[in-house]
């Protein structure tokens, strides 16, 4: 229980820090982005100008604490400001449209990548001395070193341009009605390349992690005992080796979620996939700070929650953690 409570506490505190960062970053930056922005936007509506001022805290009449308090309240209410680039739509609405696409693409790809990677990693460790294992490991080390977005570009070039098998970007064909089987098919078709990019580039990390964990576990004494007992290899591989090797993997999974999500965002940008990532990209170009911050908040919250889920999973899988906490 103590473990659980600690993890929840950490989650809430981290969320709090993320929100606070969101508040202070625009107010702390060198240079003067606010005036910069205002100058650039000659002749915008007064309401828009007002929202910029509020976002940047240029209303220096109010003490900082008050502004902070108001900001916190707004966040809790779900009011994240007005989007500049899609004025006057509130940010929360803009975000709401993009979130399902991102959850679908990045969420699913990450999970698939984790499972495939883990299984391959187990195989690479179990068959450590085979050439195929060495080759796989080497191959993925190389692949992993390519920037995510670059792999996306390569895939587009090969499969959408050179051999126009798959669509270049977007989440579904604009010619298809937004419902029915055709729609689903189109969505899947458009998701193949971006998903593959994420899966291929992040799989390497899981493979290597799991392989190393397995190798360490296979050297443990309880594996020797299991062999001495004449247990079937399948059982040893699964319940004695893999189950123990998974534990640090899941911890690693939680910790690297941030990176994976980052990579996913880039993939969206490259493929023009209308998720949160692309939105962030557009927000940057349009200098829509309110939207940018909201996206940052959303992503942080998502990663923190996913982390928390991973922590809980460990608690369920590792009896030692249940009893004492690590």
């Amino acid at each position, binding site marked *: 229980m103590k473990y659980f409570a600690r993890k929840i506490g950490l989650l809430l505190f981290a969320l709090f820090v993320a929100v606070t960062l969101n508040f202070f970053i625009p107010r702390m930056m060198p240079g003067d982005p606010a005036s910069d922005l205002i100058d650039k936007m000659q002749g915008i509506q007064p309401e828009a100008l007002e929202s910029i001022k509020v976002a940047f805290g240029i209303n220096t009449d109010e003490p900082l604490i008050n502004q902070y308090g108001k900001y916190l309240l707004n966040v809790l209410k779900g009011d994240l400001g007005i989007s500049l680039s899609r004025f006057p739509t509130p940010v929360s609405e803009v975000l709401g449209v993009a979130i399902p696409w991102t959850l679908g693409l990045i969420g699913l790809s990450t999970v698939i990548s984790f499972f495939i990677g883990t299984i391959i990693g187990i195989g690479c460790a179990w068959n450590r001395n085979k050439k195929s294992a060495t080759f796989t490991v080497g191959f993925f080390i190389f692949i992993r070193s390519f920037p995510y977005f670059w792999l996306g570009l390569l895939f587009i070039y090969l499969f959408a341009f050179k051999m126009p098998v798959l669509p270049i970007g977007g989440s579904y064909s604009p010619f298809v009605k937004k419902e029915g089987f055709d729609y689903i098919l189109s969505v899947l078709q458009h998701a193949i390349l971006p998903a593959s990019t994420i899966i291929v580039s992040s799989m390497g990390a899981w493979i290597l992690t799991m392989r190393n964990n397995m190798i360490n576990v296979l050297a443990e004494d309880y594996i020797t005992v299991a062999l*001495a007992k004449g247990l079937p290899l399948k059982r040893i591989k699964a319940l004695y080796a893999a189950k123990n090797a998974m534990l640090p993997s899941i911890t690693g999974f939680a910790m690297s979620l941030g990176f994976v999500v980052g990579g996913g965002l880039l993939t969206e940008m490259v493929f023009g996939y209308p998720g949160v990532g692309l939105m962030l990209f557009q927000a940057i170009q349009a200098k829509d700070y309110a939207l940018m911050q909201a996206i940052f908040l959303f992503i942080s919250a998502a990663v923190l929650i996913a982390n928390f889920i991973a922590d809980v999973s460990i608690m369920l899988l590792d009896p030692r953690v249940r009893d004492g906490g690590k």
Partner: protein
Amino acid sequence: MDNNRILNVANLVAGYEIKKGFVKAVDNVSFTLNKGEFLGIAGESGCGKSTLAYGLMKLLKDNALIKSGIINFNGNDIQSYSNEKMNQIRWVDMSMVFQSAMNALNPVLTIGEQLTDAIFAHTNDSKEKAKGRALEVLKLVDISADRFDSYPHQLSGGMKQRVMIAMGLILKPDLIIMDEPTTALDVVVQRTIIEKIQDLRKEFNFSVIFITHDLSLLVEISDKLAIMYAGKIVEYGKASDVFLHSLHPYTKGLMNSFPSLTGPIKRMGGIEGKPPDLLNPPEGCRFAPRCEKAMEICFKEYPKTYVKSDKHWVDCHLYNKEGNVNG
């Protein structure tokens, strides 16, 4: 084949393949074991006893292997057995009790699961029957039944060791190899475990090969004693013979290294020096550099076996074929 003989090891050579060559951790070892007999194997760290234990169960892995020799168990030459065939005897006829200090229990499975999976691997017993047997053996080692669903980290060191013993017994094997089963435990717990092993042996009459560096444990409970040094058995015989009439200087050195509870206070002896490199062992007697009775021939030639009496033999130049003591 002698009906009473359960294990016959002849000229066993086993060790580790490394880049520079082959390390002979077990160098031409031979001994026999009868039904219900207790053989103690004593020697210092690195003398090859663990390699011997693992070798007998064909558990050597990676670069560790059996180079040559014969292991005849229950009338079968198991050194040539495939892994599948070996699995049929493993745990059923021959089992092993590992050191509790080792991470011998899987941390993510309950004790019960780890006890019963051995049963499921070798029989078609139902869940209830298996659980019943597991509870039976837990009772034998004085562990309460409610521990069936406990995880290893919830048990003390002594309890874990007793679980290992229970695990070794669960399929009623003919031979149990015990590798330093009391090493990490305090003396009181050691005593309990040793006594427990005695009781169980009386009841079930299984043979035991007990491996340890602590000779004091073995003298009371062993039937036979083998003293191992640098990959070779240097002295072997009935426990009482080896203990009371030690022949080899190394054995004498070991006997002198632990104080007796009674009797006059003696000056303690240790044995200076350290064991030789097993990659390129010396030509002569391996104990020669540390032996205070070493003669010239000791460094040049490996001593021939001298059989003193009914199954008490020693490899030492101090004794020649005629039974005379040299030097």
